[in-house]
């Protein structure tokens, strides 16, 4: 059986990308976001902490957002930011890393009209 990507990611751009206008960039990441406070089946063992520590959204290698997430964020985090569309559009990229060292990234072209 094929092994699944444990942390699927969806990057979407909402709105019409007209130059000078704002579009919404949304990131949805499949991640358990374990706080480390929950107890397991037996009621004794703590479920180990597993939190996304840092997310960076870039437009043409220029940082738009750099967020440090904590234990207060629910599982499968959905983040969104608004960006003004530059003259030639560009490449939107998202990178995240969690405290276990796992990483993920996604890219999408922002085509200006």
């Amino acid at each position, binding site marked *: 059986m*094929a092994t699944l990507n444990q942390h699927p990611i969806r990057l*979407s751009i909402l709105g019409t990308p007209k130059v000078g206008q704002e579009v919404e960039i949304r990131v949805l990441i499949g991640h358990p976001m374990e706080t480390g406070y929950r107890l397991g089946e037996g009621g004794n063992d703590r479920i180990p902490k597993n939190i996304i520590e840092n997310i960076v959204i870039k437009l043409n290698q220029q940082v738009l957002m750099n967020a440090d997430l904590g234990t207060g964020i629910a599982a499968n985090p959905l983040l969104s930011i608004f960006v003004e569309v530059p003259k030639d559009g560009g490449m939107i990229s998202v990178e995240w890393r969690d405290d276990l060292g796992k990483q993920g990234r996604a890219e999408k072209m922002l085509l200006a009209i």
Partner: protein
Amino acid sequence: MNILKCFSVLFFIVFSYHLPAQVIRQSGNQFLSPEMLKLQNDPNGNPTVLWIDQGQELWNANCVKCHQEIKELASAVVRYPILKSKLGQASKVWNIEDQIIDCFGKISQESLSTEHQNVLALSIFLSDAAKGMPIHVDEPNIKKDKQLWQEQMIQGAAIYTRRQGRLNLSCTQCHDQNIGKNLRSDIVSPAYLTGFPIYRQSWQTVGSIDRRLRACYSGVQATVPSTQSSELRALELFLKKRSEGMLWDGPSIRR
């Protein structure tokens, strides 16, 4: 053409008075808060899309060899649960997750649980493909199976109306008699089975129909049946038959 239109309107006006008063059956989605409904209908924010993506991946890797048409297989979502007998075993009620587990067993010789990530991903993928199909649970043609099917249906109805647990409540007391009222901060919705598996925010993950029903049992502090037990299947069969003709909502989100 115009005359025909006039006639059909007249026909409708005359005869609609004679239609029996119908119970309007509403899917659980109509009881969501506006914010939740917005999230449900948003393909870029609805968390179930993550599972749909994974399901697509699994489908392409494992299922395409035997099943060519996704639409064809997705129609099973609205037909199940059905009576099925494995070789040398008595007939049992099977739901879609049982079928997926059985298929995975054939491929990789391992038995998965209903809450396994792969099972849920594939179940959600099929459920999404079945969106908009009318639910149609049919009784089997074979005479022997027919009797068993009816027994299961009666058992399901009995469970639905049976008081149980420390709260001494039956399903019907909330899900028929108190629809639309508040239960803690949630609104009680009627028990129609139109969109599973569900993403529940309190679980922070996706769960199968088994998990949802077991949560109901534990909610009234009754003895919780084990997953894939015949009791849960009988109840599911009854609930699905109750939703006969309603349109399938696809994977849904709940609080």
